[in-house]
């Protein structure tokens, strides 16, 4: 299987992680980089301020905990501790600011610890509503406007509506292109592996979006011209917490299977839908980020999340679902029982993996994946 040139270029630009070629080039022109942590931060507002939005995550190399747990105890999510360890190790010293939401307790506490022990020049916290209602859109929209004001103060320049509108166009284009890639993965033989698809999605949040969009166009073109196909017997869906260490996905795919769709924030949610360009831009962003994407784990009412998973599994014609949860993720913990029931009702086999964020995909994942695939074989085999 040939490497995709456009993806290789994305990876070159976003390496080494996190202070990559793209970041260094950006900073070299005197512009600022704002880190963001979870999917309720509209990157468009940061983009409209002329700053680079950069998603704070771990990556494909595991991070040794050497001090993080003095500030965030070990009975908390390893993604949060990983990112804090990286901050302590000065891996994120290129950030001029950091913005997060109270999407979950642990996101909020990472923000707080960062603000307390290693404050950056710009720091902001936004509330991410749990309800998907009109009233919640108003509440969130007011907070987004306040975020724009605070960023304007930091910039010492008003971020006007028309610039936000322009950024929405840029990001909408990116979403459209990423969604096209998802559509291609519906083919019997998808053109990319699950690990490659997540690498693409990661790059979207680590480099200037205009450049990313250009590379996405090249990538789609390259796929069409090359007729690239992944020839694997089984189709899988990956759900649960974000996996930024794609070696875990590679481990799954080392068996005779390919991940064709997911339910992750770093995956399909990043590609999903469009911001309404006919509305005032801040309202449009509030509406899109709260209502315009599939229900996620942080919403109280998970019915929509479970339905979405079931629907995608059917649309992408998957043989099985791999549900992975990072330990101490309270939201996924409370979805477990109903998720299992939902998958059973739909007749979709499911493999449950409890992982630590950032750990490399090792034999443990491979062995479980192989056993799961064997089970799928027997599931698919006609009765003798």
């Amino acid at each position: 299987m040939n490497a995709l040139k456009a993806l290789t270029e994305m990876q070159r630009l976003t390496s080494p992680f996190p202070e990559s070629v793209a970041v260094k080039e950006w900073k070299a022109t005197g512009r600022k980089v704002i880190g963001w942590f979870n999917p309720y931060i509209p990157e468009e507002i940061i983009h409209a301020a002329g700053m680079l939005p950069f998603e704070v995550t771990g990556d494909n190399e595991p991070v040794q905990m050497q001090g993080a747990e003095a500030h965030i105890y070990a009975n908390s999510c390893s993604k949060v501790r990983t990112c804090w360890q990286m901050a302590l190790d000065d891996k994120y010293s290129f950030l001029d600011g950091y913005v997060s939401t109270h999407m979950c307790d642990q996101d909020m506490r990472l923000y707080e610890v960062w603000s307390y022990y290693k404050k950056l020049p710009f720091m902001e916290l936004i509330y991410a509503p749990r309800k998907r209602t009109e009233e919640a859109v108003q509440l969130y929209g007011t907070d987004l406007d306040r975020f724009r004001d605070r960023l304007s103060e930091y910039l010492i320049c008003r971020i006007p509506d028309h610039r936000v509108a322009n950024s929405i166009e840029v990001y909408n284009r990116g979403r459209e292109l990423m969604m096209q890639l998802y559509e291609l993965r519906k083919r019997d033989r998808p053109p990319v592996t699950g690990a490659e698809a997540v690498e693409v999605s990661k790059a979207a949040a680590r480099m200037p979006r205009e450049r990313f969009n250009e590379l996405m166009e090249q990538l789609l073109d390259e796929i069409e011209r090359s007729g690239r196909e992944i020839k694997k017997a089984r189709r899988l869906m990956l759900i649960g917490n974000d996996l930024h260490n794609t070696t875990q996905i590679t481990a799954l795919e080392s068996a005779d299977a390919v991940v064709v769709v997911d339910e992750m924030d770093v995956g399909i949610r990043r590609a999903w839908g469009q911001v309404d360009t006919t509305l005032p831009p801040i309202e449009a962003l509030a509406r899109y980020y709260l209502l315009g994407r599939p229900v996620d784990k942080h919403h109280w009412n998970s019915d929509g999340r479970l339905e979405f998973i079931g629907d995608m599994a059917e649309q992408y014609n998957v043989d099985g679902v791999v549900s992975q949860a990072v330990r101490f993720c309270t939201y996924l913990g409370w979805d477990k029982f109903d998720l299992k029931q939902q998958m059973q009702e739909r007749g979709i086999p499911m493999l449950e993996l409890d992982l630590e964020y950032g750990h490399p995909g090792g034999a443990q994942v491979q062995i479980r994946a192989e056993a799961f695939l064997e089970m799928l074989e027997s599931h698919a085999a006609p009765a003798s």
Partner: protein
Amino acid sequence: MSNDTILSVEDIRETLKKMKEGVKQQPGLMKSTYRYLDAVSGYVERVANAKDEGAWVATHGTQQPLEILEAMDVRGVFNEFWGVVSDIARLESVPEAMSVSASLGTPGEVCSFFRNMDGLMHVGKWPRSDMFLYAASVCDNVKAFHTLGRRYGIPSFGLERSFLPYTGHAIEFWKNEYLRLIAFLEEQTGKKMDYDRLKDVVAKSYRLTELHLEIDRLVANVPCPLAPECFSATLVAIRCWPGTQYGIDFLTEVRDELQERVNNGVGAIENERFRVLWSTFTPFFDPKLMGFMQQKYGAVSVADMLSTWRVDENVQANWMLDPDDPLGNLAYRTVLAPGNCQYSTGVDVGTVLSGKCRRFKVDAAIFQNNWGCKTGAGYGPVIKDELMRQVKVPTLTLHSDILDHTFISRAEIEGQMDSFFEMVEASKTYQERRAVA
């Protein structure tokens, strides 16, 4: 699997009755102990009798405007209280209920208040509930209310509260959520809200706040007049009996006894060596630990975070902003109230607790890092550092589970406390503080 160890409502009710009678025979306790146990068992009675008395029952979490329930004759079952009272009645019940929860696939890393509820619901021992009520900005575990509600066919309503509740738009939103809650309750019960009654309930609730703060001022005395057997009296009154005459009478009795003890120089113990703040919750999983600490170390528990109003030298808990706007008052009250106001930043909580350390003349703090609590795991270190920075109070961090006594042994706790109190006593700050006292 046998579920015999798991307590039913009836089991808890009977055990509390016996305990209440038992304290009459025990010498050396505060007089209010009987009344305290009466308040605890009375709450359970109200829940147990609800069906026979035709009352509605709502299982709920924190941040709830309980006065609205009181005004609509809806009886609350506070899920956290139910876990605590289970520990008081029989320590073995909670771990057993949590093993049932685990058998359903619920991970062991989520909060044990909710795992206990999960297990009890599965075995049919949770109080009969007509609805579930919960709120955001409490903790992520409140999602369990929706999940369990769906599983058992119980309607639920969640209140959305911004994590940053003090801005104009956020508090207005919070108040409007109460209107939506009332609409939900009206729909469920078929009764209309009587706003005159609500005003009366709110006024009584405000009186309870005043009594709580009066008690705080008395407890701050040296020696501390409050004994461990009544330590949670204010919290029980505020969380279980808000807006009721019963709650007012109960706290009035506690206050009067404390005043008498202060007048007579009676302390919890004779030789008070250390004054302790529990900078999260008190040891629910080991109800006798505070008494043990008094005996072994002369360490008296004088304050905790859970029964803290968000007050300091500048901010008072005067939440009755307009007597004709009960919902506006309640919106402010719930964000200042004990058990609610700690859902804030670590710096804010650390500052409120530092003020408390000054007023209560605290020597040492104990932070319980509850295994299932992500809020605590995230802001415990900040609170610890703020207590040291602002008031030079050192903190012992105990890694525990809020309800499960099997998580950490008494021997392990004792070992940690031995060295902690030794360290506190040897510290220059402690010696200076004692010299001044």
